[in-house]
């Protein structure tokens, strides 16, 4: 059964007086039943603290956490009906896989027969039936990850919490388990909150993404909105790989046509009338052209297989361009640059906010 999750005015302050550090500043997030919310941000942004507050492992200094409409502040973690997957998996080392998965049910006084059946069901779902008698120390990293998922699933909780669950896996396993988590969420439909610092995990898994920095919620929205309409420079730079290109300059309009002027060039773009602007444009929305009022020198060509990323040094800064593989560019070439006007985003230099 999917439950809603409401986070209202959550503050968390460590220390007091002049040494007080506010690690969470009035966080408000509403998560609809069945949603998969991603909390993403650089380390130290408060995302893990927020997750621990939802779980009840830490108390907020102020604010409310509502699960299925009920305020749970002061309610013990065990009574919140939450399952959590930890970065280190936190499997009980002295128990077998089956005992690990059945522990929460045992604590809830589920009869043994029902417990065994439920563990078998979940083990089948995760294809770990053959591991049930083993100890965690006898498992590989990927298997431990699956068992940790199984332990959370066996509970059939109201809410799933994930604390960077994939960061201890190698690249290939990470992609596999990412898909597995997505599949399990679609299958179970349980409301989930997932903490990560990996923006690819955030983009691929989330139905909505909450970007945090310095204890402040920067933006919350669907992956598409976060990607194409970032609220500020930080979000724009944090989400997307390679990162968005930023060019600082100013608008200048003559008659009906507006142009964006910057160091070493100008672009004929419809831009907000402002003296200090930053143009943000993703690598896939910049093209290499022969003739342009803006040009630079190729410093790096990075083929990744599906795409080739070309880095160009211009007077206004380095620009990354996504090109088709086999594009005939070489380091040292001079090339012109053009920007797809429809996908350009503009930021105010002073406030760093996006100008809609």
């Amino acid at each position, binding site marked *: 059964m999917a439950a809603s999750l409401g986070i209202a005015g959550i503050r968390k302050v460590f220390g007091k007086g002049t040494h007080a550090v506010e690690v969470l500043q009035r966080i408000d997030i509403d998560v609809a039943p069945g949603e998969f919310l991603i909390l993403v941000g650089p380390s130290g942004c408060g995302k893990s603290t927020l997750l621990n507050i939802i*779980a009840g492992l830490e108390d907020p200094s102020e604010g409310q956490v509502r699960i299925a409409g009920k305020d749970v502040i002061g309610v013990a973690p065990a009574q919140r009906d939450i*399952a959590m997957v930890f970065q280190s998996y936190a499997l009980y*080392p002295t128990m077998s896989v089956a005992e690990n998965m059945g522990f929460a049910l045992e604590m809830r006084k589920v009869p043994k027969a029902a417990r065994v059946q439920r563990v078998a069901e979940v083990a089948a779902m995760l294809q770990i039936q053959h591991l049930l008698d083993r100890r965690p120390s006898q498992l590989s990293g990927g298997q431990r990850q699956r068992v940790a998922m199984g332990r959370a699933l066996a509970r059939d909780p109201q809410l799933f919490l994930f604390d960077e669950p994939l960061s201890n896996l190698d690249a290939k396993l990470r992609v596999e388990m990412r898909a597995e988590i997505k599949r399990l969420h679609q299958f179970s439909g349980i409301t989930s909150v997932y903490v990560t610092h990996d923006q690819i995990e955030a983009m691929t898994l989330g139905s909505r993404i909450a970007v945090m920095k310095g204890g402040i919620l920067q933006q919350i929205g669907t992956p598409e909105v976060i990607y194409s309409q970032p609220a500020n420079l930080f979000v724009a730079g944090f989400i997307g790989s390679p990162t968005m290109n930023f060019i600082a300059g100013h608008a200048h309009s003559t008659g009906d046509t507006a142009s964006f002027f910057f160091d070493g060039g100008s672009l004929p773009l419809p831009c907000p009338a402002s003296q200090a602007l930053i143009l943000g444009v993703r690598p896939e929305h910049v093209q290499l052209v022969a003739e342009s009022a803006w040009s630079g020198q190729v410093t790096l060509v990075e083929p990744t297989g599906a795409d080739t990323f070309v880095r160009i040094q211009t007077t206004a800064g380095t620009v990354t361009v996504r090109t088709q593989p086999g594009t005939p560019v070489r380091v040292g070439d001079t090339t012109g640059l053009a920007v797809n006007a429809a996908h350009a985003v503009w930021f105010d230099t002073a406030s760093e906010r996006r100008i809609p």
Partner: protein
Amino acid sequence: MTVKQLSRTLLYLVLALAALFFVAPLYVMLVTSLKDAEQIRQGNLLSLPTSINLESWGMAWSGACTGVDCRGLQPYFWNSVRMAVPAVLLSTAWGAVNGYVLSHWKFRGSELLFGLLLFGVFMPFQVVLLPMSQVLGALGLSSSIVGLVIVHCLAGVAGTTLFFRNYYTAIPKELISAARLDGAGFWRIFWRIVLPLSTPILMVTLIWQFTNIWNDFLFGVSFSGADSKPVTVGLNNMANTSSSVKSYNVDMAAAVIAALPTMLVYVLAGQYFVKGLTAGAVKG
């Protein structure tokens, strides 16, 4: 002979010398205990006994006199057992729970409390003799084995807490969090998650406490009464009794008997001692 072989030989030579140094007294005790009075009078400390004589062992156990009391070491030995077993178990259990709290259920001031507990580890126990005897008197536990058990628990708890606390800090915090979310409470987490991980440190603490409490003389001589003297005090009194001819063989047998339980504990659980002292983080 290569340099490596030479250094090996030197190493073993040094080790053999060190072993000899520690084993020699034991050897003297054992051979003397097996000699009869005539052989001892010949004065050769290191010679093997010409005939095996077990009489002294019987005497030491149940016949030797301390003053007019000729029950041997036996009553004191059982006093020590009745004192050491509960004191070891209680102080170890107490330390385990303290360590669990101080590492995973920290509260305001818990670090300060731990700091103060460390004082207890380094405090010379002579300092507490007088106040402790007053407290025991007030509790009506003077000269009783229960009193000695309490004294040993109090004296030992600082050390056992330190052992367990340091071992438990290596248990990942997330493990405790996972169990809390799974619905286990304070005691359940202790029994089901923490204690099963504690075998090495339990062994270390049990051996440590048993050796300390069994070998203790200071508390034994200060707080025991006529009927509650531990074996260390009993041995001392027996060897110092001057009413008859000195029977060294009986004294030596008594000394070996008094030392036997700690040696036995080391032999049985010694492998865990080294393992426990060197055990690192708990592998998940």
